[in-house]
């Protein structure tokens, strides 16, 4: 029985699932820093095709390359969501025309249901810290990387008034992929939204 929060990164056969290797440590650091949630000091990598995925209520999936789930992966993802799991998908490309975005959103639509825009006054944005304007922007958006767009909303699939799949075009994977020791150089910790995501996932 897992009694502490474990950050699980989803492994999938296609694409580069481990393109943001420092995000787990950084979010673990933020959860430990701001909350009293018991947390395991290192994350785990869990194959989506494995039943181990059901042991973790929160899972993180990212990458740059096209996503194609196997049938087993689709079945597990469907069951993971139905069992109450929370999957956070972040497009590491930050590009609405990118290969990851197109294929990942198609896979989610095929496996669960189409993603919809999440309103910016959703409880997610007040789950721990308050983000009045919805999802915080990333430096990659503001500096013109990717599609030159600042995405106003996140996307989501909701199940029974809770988010089951949260999808981001904002490239938090780039924004948060640095060693947590370097957080001290930031005037404002940009991983605070990660705390909201984790707290929301654990409380809804």
């Amino acid at each position, binding site marked *: 029985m897992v009694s502490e929060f474990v950050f699980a990164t989803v492994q999938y056969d296609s694409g*580069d699932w481990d*393109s943001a290797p*420092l995000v787990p*440590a950084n979010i*673990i650091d933020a959860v430990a820093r701001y909350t*009293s949630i018991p947390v395991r*000091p*290192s994350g785990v990598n869990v194959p989506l095709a494995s039943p181990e995925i059901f042991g973790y209520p929160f899972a993180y999936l990212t990458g740059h390359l096209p996503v194609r789930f196997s049938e087993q992966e689709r079945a597990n993802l469907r069951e993971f969501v139905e069992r109450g799991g929370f999957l956070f998908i972040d497009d590491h490309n930050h590009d609405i025309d990118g290969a990851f975005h197109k294929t990942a959103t198609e896979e989610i639509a095929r496996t669960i249901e189409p993603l919809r825009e999440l309103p910016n006054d959703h409880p997610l944005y007040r789950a721990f810290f308050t983000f009045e304007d919805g999802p915080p922007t990333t430096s990659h958006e503001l500096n013109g990387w990717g*599609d030159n767009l600042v995405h106003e909303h996140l996307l989501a699939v909701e199940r029974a008034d809770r988010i089951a799949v949260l999808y981001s075009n904002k490239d938090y994977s780039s924004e948060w992929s640095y060693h*947590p020791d370097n957080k001290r150089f930031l005037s404002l910790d940009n991983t605070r939204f990660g705390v909201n995501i984790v707290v929301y996932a654990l409380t809804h």
Partner: protein
Amino acid sequence: MTARERLARARTLLAAATVGAALLWALCAGMLVYGSLVVAALVGGRWIGSAVATGIAMAAAVTVGAAVAWRARRAWSGSHVALWIEERVPALRYALVTSLEPQTAGTAAALENRIAGTQWEPVIRSAAIRATGIPLAAAAMALVLLVALPALRRPLAAAARAPAGRLTSEGAPVPPVTRLSPLRVRVEPPPYSGLATQRLDDPAGIPALTGSRVVIRGPGRPPEMTATIGGRALDVTAAESEWEVLLIMPGRPAALRLATHAEERLIVLEPRVDSVPRVTLVRPARDTIYREAIGALSLRAEARDDFGLAELRLEYIVSSGQGESFSFRSGVLGTRSARGRATTTLDATARLDSLALRPGDIVHLRAVAHDRNSVTGPGVGYSETRMLRIARPDEYDSLSIEPLPPLSGDTGLLSQRMLIQMAEELERQRPRLSREAVVGESRRIAADQARLRRQVGEIIFMRLGGESSGEHSHEGESPEEHAVHAPPEGRLTPEQLLAAAEAATNRDMSEALDFHGDETPVVAINRPLLEAYNAMWDAGRELDIGEPDDALPHMRIALEAIQRARTAERIYLRGRAPAVIVDLARVRLVGKRDGVDPVSVRPRDDTRSDAVRRNERFAAALERLSAGDASAADTLALLRLDALTDAPALATAIGAAIEALRTGSDATDALVSSRRLLAGEVDTRRTLPAWSLSW
């Protein structure tokens, strides 16, 4: 008017005067009795309740009124009135009394004539005035006595609506006597403050200077009686026939919890803090630099304190040296004993040459005042520090600022995606535009496309060792014109770059002038960008001749190539992901000592604002109040304790509400005031920005 008629009129007047006198005496008696009951309650500490007191006062009033009326009952009798008039008007010679008996016609006429010649009305009027004037004056005096005297006004007002219980000297009836009520409190401020001892009757809170000796007494014996402040138990001793608690007023607001086995009571301790002295260094007024350490320096400092100053002095520190080698010396330039005065001033003169100052030395001047606080102090106040520097001979005496010219232009290149959108828009509008307009707009897009192409060329070659592509800005030139510019040795011409691009995209291998044989590093590393560069050339050509529809396919190829290049750049060449293990103890600042495991982190403090939390607590108290829960007063007391430090107005309003609740009077006004203070000021915001007003 006959004698009988005049007599009847006199009787009516006397009867009315009698009734008025009875009512006035009754009113007077009622007021005096009620006031006496209040005074008796103040003296004896027992209050019988407003209803009972009113009843007693009414009974007294009725009794007195009835007695007066009974005593003057003969005013309703005509014969008695006639005798009363005969007694006071001898000139009637009993004609009036005789006229009331049956008479013969002749006798009656004679009597009428005698009576008609006599005036008794003035006697009647003066008697009526006398009968009503005296009780009227007495009633007025009683009213003035009860209402006008400050010492009785509040007790009367409070008693008028109070239930049975006790009545304090403040006029507040309190619940029946228990071991926790009424309380008598004696506050002895610390001697240095010079304040007098204060006595409080059954207070909800005790305001006192920090360090004051507070003695609380209550009815009954101390056994099974506890007194605690923040979990710390106080001794409860016996004093005469009462229990007694002695405490020293703490530095921060606290709640004194008194409890017996049957009841509990909270008393809010409201410390008044002795402020530190406020010190101002009047002269010198600002920092300055002296060329030489000569002359006299006039100094002046002022200080004030709430309970009296002990001393004011002027201090200095001289720092000498530079770099990492400094030395310091300090001293006092003047001292003045304030002897407990609330304000004092110190004037002094310092001779700079007596301070043995050298060039580069800095004199730090400040004034320091001590108060007489012997309990938590002494409080020490400091003025601002002035710095007087002695200039070095070799230092600059002026500052030169050279303006920096604006940075060279930030061109703000348009992205390929935006150029495509512009070309598409131009193509949509083309049917409505003249040929000249289409060509002009198309060439403007071509110029931007050329700028972007040069940017791509720069990226390609800068990555191969910092070399520029050699393509410089020649706006509006055709490739042929551009070719006449001979590039410096070692750099590529645009044509060579184009050839490399075409070679990279397999369009014309024979023209790859510089790259015979194996693929060059330029091609190997930059294939997608070279393809983009090539497509941009084609797009630029089409745009230059005003054919945006033909340019668009090339522009899209360029965009796609850029995307591919960027995707290629972002792919990680990775092995195993680094395993970062977060040091939770360090992150949570719980540390680790001598092998002891980190303690679990405590929940963070409530991040909601004080106002929000107080609003919630206030709402909870109101709910309990409406449900008749007696603990509502304690909730309000704790809320008041919380507000004492930073919201004194709120604390006062809540205090008034608690007092009203304790006395059983209407607390609505105080609660409304508290809620308004909790809500804070109304925050109004303009719905339109200022600039919109001009629209």
